[in-house]
């Protein structure tokens, strides 16, 4: 190998550090405001939060009220989204399920991100053996494709919403750990970290005051996008009957009910699905927008 030896002199500059330019919230917000898709996503999320907060008080029907004579009615003026096989109003049930969906997405990401960030930052900062051990553990979790890990965890813990949150959280740990480790490694190479070491700063000070605040952008972006994934996984588990149990108005579970009536009442499966698509789409749009806004390469 006749590779040049330039990097030897200062091994820390061998890899190009990320742009150390200050992430100015004003610039980020300005960029975000100009991004139509991100704004639509953001407003949709606000709308769903609003629906979750006040919706349950103003729905025309209680989500659990069964009126058997009204069962499987197509959408009409009284029942905007029609009724299900127990004669329950699907529109009301979807509104009641909104908060559930958001909470599952939010808490599973909060839990997964907290643990993942901790693992990632420790692995990236200390390197060596600690890094190997943590990352091999993450590899093991990553060896289970897609929602299979969540499925296995729910199998063990039993099917319930809380367990779904835990399961989805655990399966998102490695994603955060990897991203945070990578960012930590590149921030660690910046000269100001060396300057802090040269001043005699403690590891804790360097990690919490100088590394963490500079890697929040990728964490925020990943968290936003991961809420979308988490909602998909959680509703998938409920669809399989392993999450929220009936009669909880969980969208995935409602969809699962609908599959039996595709022939004569397709609306039962249609509307909960559309609701999931809308929420997930909103988080994906906002996440994409945040990623662009945080990227110093994209212009205002």
């Amino acid at each position, binding site marked *: 190998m006749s590779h040049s030896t330039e990097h030897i002199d200062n091994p820390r500059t061998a890899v190009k550090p990320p742009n150390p330019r200050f992430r100015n919230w004003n610039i980020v917000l300005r960029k975000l405001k100009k991004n139509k898709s991100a704004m639509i996503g953001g407003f949709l999320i606000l709308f769903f939060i609003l629906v979750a907060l006040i919706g349950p008080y103003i729905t025309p029907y209680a989500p659990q009220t069964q009126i058997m004579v009204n069962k499987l009615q197509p959408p009409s003026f009284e029942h905007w989204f029609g009724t299900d096989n127990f004669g329950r109003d699907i529109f009301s049930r979807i509104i009641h399920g909104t908060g559930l969906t958001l909470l599952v997405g939010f808490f599973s990401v909060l839990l997964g991100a907290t643990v993942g960030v901790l693992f990632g930052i420790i692995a990236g900062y200390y390197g060596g053996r600690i890094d190997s051990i943590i990352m091999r553990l993450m*590899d*093991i979790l990553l060896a*289970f494709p*897609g929602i*299979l890990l969540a499925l296995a965890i729910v199998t063990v813990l039993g099917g319930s919403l809380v367990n779904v949150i835990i399961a989805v959280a655990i399966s998102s740990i490695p994603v955060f750990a990897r991203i945070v480790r990578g960012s930590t490694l590149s921030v660690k190479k910046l000269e100001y970290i060396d300057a802090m070491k040269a001043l005699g700063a403690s590891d804790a000070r360097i990690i919490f005051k100088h590394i963490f605040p500079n890697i929040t952008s990728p964490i925020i972006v990943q968290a936003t996008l991961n809420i979308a994934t988490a909602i998909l996984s959680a509703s998938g588990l409920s669809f*399989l009957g392993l999450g929220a149990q009936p009669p909880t108005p969980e969208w995935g579970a409602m969809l699962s009910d609908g599959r039996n009536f595709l022939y004569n009442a397709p609306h039962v499966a249609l509307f909960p*699905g559309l609701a999931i698509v809308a929420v997930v789409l909103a988080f994906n749009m906002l996440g994409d927008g945040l990623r662009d806004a945080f990227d110093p390469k994209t212009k205002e």
Partner: protein
Amino acid sequence: MFKYIIRRIIQTIPVLIGVSILVFSMMHLVPGDPAQIMAGESAPKEQVENIRERLGLNDPLPVQYLSYIGDALQGDLGNSMRSGRDVTSEIGARFWVTVELAVYSTIVAVFIGLIAGVISATRKYSFADTSLMLIALFGLSMPNFWLGLMLIQWFAIGIDLPSWVPFISDTSWFKPSGWGSFQQVVLPVITLGTGSAAIIARMTRSSMLDVIGQDYIRTARAKGVKERIVVYQHALKNALIPVVTVVGLQFGGLLGGAVLTESVFAVNGMGKLIIDSIKARDFPVVQGTILVVALLFVIVNLIVDITYRYLNKRIDLD
């Protein structure tokens, strides 16, 4: 290169051990007595004792693990609680069904994703780009089980449309369930492949745009190379390298996603086997199937890593 392959293979051993420990402990982490759970709550005592004996639950944990692994290495994953048949043969034919589903879906996803991604990248901010990326965003945000149900509704059951609408009005040609014939394969493959196609399209686009901004693209232009050749030779060759990794990860993701797709289309693959077994509390089958899928995933990732390394000549070989 050969050394690298060997090293990567050796590196996967601890991962496989970790996976097997995790899968093994599944049964022991279940709250309560696994034997009792399997037998059912009202089962007579001796039946529970019988199960416990059969599964070796009375041995110390490390012994149980070692014997489980020892058996697994010889292809013995225990016996199904439900059918009494051995897990390996339960998985047997279903293994190929799931692999077929995942492979077909991957092929479709790569094909569509690459074309869409390249079109988008070469016509940045055009109408085509915007619409393709919007479709991709939708594809990404759709739960595949819902997409599956909708496809069944539209194409296998049919919707009430006026008879003069060609083709769509008679769409019950596709089959809503099963696996094997073309009519049965198309819908599940679309269902499973859509999300991956979206991800690959987005990845291809951003990778292309990244490469187009590189110094060596400017060098090619300064040489007088035609723009078409700059894009399809100089840029694409570099842009595809990261896409390979994504394709590999997608294949694994599809193995997981198959659980839902198979459930929707009643495809008798490993995914459906897992779900059915979970519901029947048939733990040996659940364990065995998850172990097999994880193993498959690890192997695919290994192949992808090696391919990536081969394509990306910038990484020094050894």
